[in-house]
């Protein structure tokens, strides 16, 4: 395994080097770096041109310029990176530091969301092949796949930012909209759960009633401006998380593991009150991280004590449930910050420009409101990027899952009497996921490319903006800084995908 990883790193380094040469040469030949000066009427024009030629080394041959850049970058190994300066004299190191965070946050969140949702949709539509749900997902995938990113982004900016701001000023959901939302949910849930027509109608009606009631109640208590989950919803969510974990592992009928999960939920409820004061105003992400670690430890301990001879499964289920519950408690606290954030943002929470609603230097809210400050701005670009990736993930997963379901070993598993649940989760899903891992690497690169577009439209000063600045001024240094981050991130994603591949498919572990 170590050798496998080392070989991958060596190849990646070589590719990174070749790619950097290619990018550098293409960029410096992509236009005339003196264009703006040639057209200017300034009196000291010639002087300016000479100065720029001198600064950027325009008279040097390409390899000499590249070598200069490469020497600066190779000092990274002794932790003294020098990425050069941009044409206007700005230090690219600083430029990169200020822009990389927001972009990478965007792309990483979009990647994981897309994988999670896309794979889930793909698996569901494969299991319910040729159902209404399957056709809807297939058509939606085609639609999103053919959607011009930039067009969708502008549309979303209008509906998600401008009109949402108008709506939140006086939030009210009409009965018609409530009914429509409930109807959509009902159709989706009924066709996913499947079964006989009678059963589908019953599930649909129940879902409709529940969603209609929820939305109506939310509207009555003005949940949209003062949201919170509250204890009842946290409990419901935690039980749902436990149910999901059980279905994915041993099934609902296993008493020992179920009890372990229930005890975890009980402990989670106790911790909700114990950690309440800490969580009301935590000093930073370190507190959240520490609490998460405690959550995992508690989950493991409960599984260990309660699991008996099924210790391992019980530990997995407990940790999963505990994390799910921790997430719900986190969301509860976060949502309680919304009202304060609305006030800070003057009731127009979503801005159409920038990666923060209020620039951090001027922001005065607490920890939770601070999350909203960048989180709100993250939502729309993430939706744009995720939609398109979801389309490809769901298609690939569906195809891969269908192929797996038709394999002989699945028939064997069924014929020896295993339940659908075990066949799908234990035998089919694991094998169907193997080919997906290779797509992740390609998809991550295209997401980084897509980020260039979304950053332009949503006015982020991120990596994409830096790349465009470099390209527009025919200045290789910002472009190469973009390349280093994008390439490095892609290499790491690729590596993770390879390791995931190896852990899913023992045949290639050599």
């Amino acid at each position, binding site marked *: 395994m170590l050798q496998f990883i080392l070989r991958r790193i060596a190849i990646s380094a070589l590719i990174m080097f070749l*790619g950097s040469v290619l990018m550098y040469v293409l960029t410096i030949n992509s236009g005339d770096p003196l264009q703006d000066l040639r057209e200017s009427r300034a009196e000291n024009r010639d002087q300016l041109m000479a100065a720029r030629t001198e600064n950027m080394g325009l008279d040097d041959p390409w390899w000499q310029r590249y070598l200069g850049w490469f020497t600066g970058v190779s000092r990274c190994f002794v932790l003294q990176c020098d990425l050069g300066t941009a044409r206007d004299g700005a230090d690219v190191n600083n430029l990169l530091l200020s822009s990389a965070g927001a972009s990478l946050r965007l792309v990483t969140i979009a990647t994981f969301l897309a994988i999670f949702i896309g794979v889930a949709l793909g698996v569901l539509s494969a299991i319910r092949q040729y159902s209404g749900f399957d056709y809807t997902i297939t058509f939606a995938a085609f639609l999103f796949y053919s959607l*011009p990113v930039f067009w969708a982004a*502008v549309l979303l900016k209008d509906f998600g930012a401008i009109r949402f701001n108008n709506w939140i000023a006086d939030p009210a959901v009409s009965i018609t909209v409530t009914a429509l939302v409930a109807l959509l949910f009902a159709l989706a849930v009924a066709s996913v759960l499947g079964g006989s027509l009678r059963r589908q109608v019953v599930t649909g009606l129940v879902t409709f009633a529940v969603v209609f009631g929820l939305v109506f109640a939310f509207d009555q208590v003005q949940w949209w401006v003062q949201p919170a989950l509250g204890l009842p919803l946290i409990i419901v969510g935690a039980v749902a998380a436990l149910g999901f974990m059980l279905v994915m592992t041993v099934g609902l009928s296993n008493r020992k593991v179920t009890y372990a999960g229930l005890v975890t939920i009980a402990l989670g409820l106790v911790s909700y009150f114990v950690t309440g004061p800490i969580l009301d105003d935590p000093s930073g992400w370190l507190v959240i991280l520490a609490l998460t670690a405690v959550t995992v430890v508690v989950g493991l301990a409960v599984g260990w004590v309660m699991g008996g001879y099924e210790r391992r499964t019980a530990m997995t289920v407990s940790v999963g449930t505990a994390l799910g519950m921790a997430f719900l408690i986190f969301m509860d606290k976060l949502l309680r910050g919304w009202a304060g954030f609305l006030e800070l943002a003057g009731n127009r929470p979503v801005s159409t420009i920038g990666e923060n609603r209020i620039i951090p230097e001027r922001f005065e809210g607490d920890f939770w409101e601070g999350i909203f400050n960048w989180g709100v701005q993250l939502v729309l670009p993430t939706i744009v990027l995720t939609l398109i990736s979801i389309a490809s993930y769901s298609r690939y997963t569906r195809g891969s899952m269908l192929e797996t379901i038709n394999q002989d070993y699945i028939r064997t598993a069924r014929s020896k009497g295993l339940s659908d649940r075990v066949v799908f989760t234990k035998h089919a899903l694991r094998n169907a996921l193997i080919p997906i891992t290779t797509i992740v690497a390609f998809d991550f690169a295209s997401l*980084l490319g*897509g980020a260039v577009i979304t950053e332009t439209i949503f006015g982020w000063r991120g990596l994409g903006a830096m790349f465009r600045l470099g390209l527009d001024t025919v200045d290789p240094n910002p472009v190469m800084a*973009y390349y280093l981050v*994008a390439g490095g991130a*892609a*290499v790491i994603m690729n590596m993770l995908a390879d390791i995931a591949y190896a852990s899913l498919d023992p045949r290639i572990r050599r």
Partner: protein
Amino acid sequence: MTDNHRPDDPEHTPAASSVEEVYSVEKQIDLSQKSYSQGQLVRRRFFRHRGAMVSLFVLVFITVMAFTSIGYGLIPSWWDKTFYDAGAAVDGGRPTMQLWPFQIGEHPFGQDTIGKDYFALTMRGTQRSLIVAFTVGLLSTVIGTLIGAIAGFFRGWVEAILMRVTDLFIIIPLLVLAAVVGKMASGIWWLALMLSLLTWTGLARLVRGEVLSLREREFVTAAEAIGTGPWRIIFKHILPNTIGTIIVSATLAIAATILLESALSFLGYGVRAPDTSLGLLISTYQNAFLTRPWLFWWPGLMILGIALSVNFLGDGLRDAFDPRQNRTAD
């Protein structure tokens, strides 16, 4: 397919007495069931694919409309306005097209901010996008097929280069590379050529994979045994067996290029003013969305329509060439 008589035409069935008994069994089957060649089967499956047929109609309709309405080269135009002349604003430049009662009116898609006819502008943009997309689809397919076949058949350094170049595209986002080369290219033909040089790798890998397995098959060994040269084997024996992959991939490449080209034009690295393209139109009028939404809707819907129909066509072709992927019982 092995029969030398025409099963669909009983009169031509050979009635030679010596082999009559052999045929009698076959005749019963043949008379009740037509038999088809591989190509006929593919064509039948394709024409029965409803989604693909609708998309084919939409695509042909858009293409014919784009090239005849404002004319192209020798093709005469039937639309009386051009995409560069500004006229007086009619009804504040709003679209005059109505569905009920149906009327086209003076400016069916409306007018832009300085009074140019938006229908003509959109058609011009569609032309540009279609030209780039189809050229790239064709060129990159040719390049990809050739390199893939050579890499798969001869292995060696061509294969090594192919694999490393594909690795490059994992590291550098395609859009970024395309932006850099698109900035160099002036005019849509150069743009198309440059984009083709970037987009062939996916198909090359697919073709290489198929050639790798086909070259081990008996018919290739047989061809080699009778002294057939490598190029003849590639073109006459191997490539015809990969035609399904190639056609499907070419279709999907066209859809991907439409999106890539419009994205580049939107960012300003593709088709540039004074010429126009669908991406450029959206980029120019994105801020007019609140005041003149039609300037934003038409080009976007056009891109969506073309890309969607080409993607559906590709799906129909895939089902036609490889029915196993789609339905279990067919």
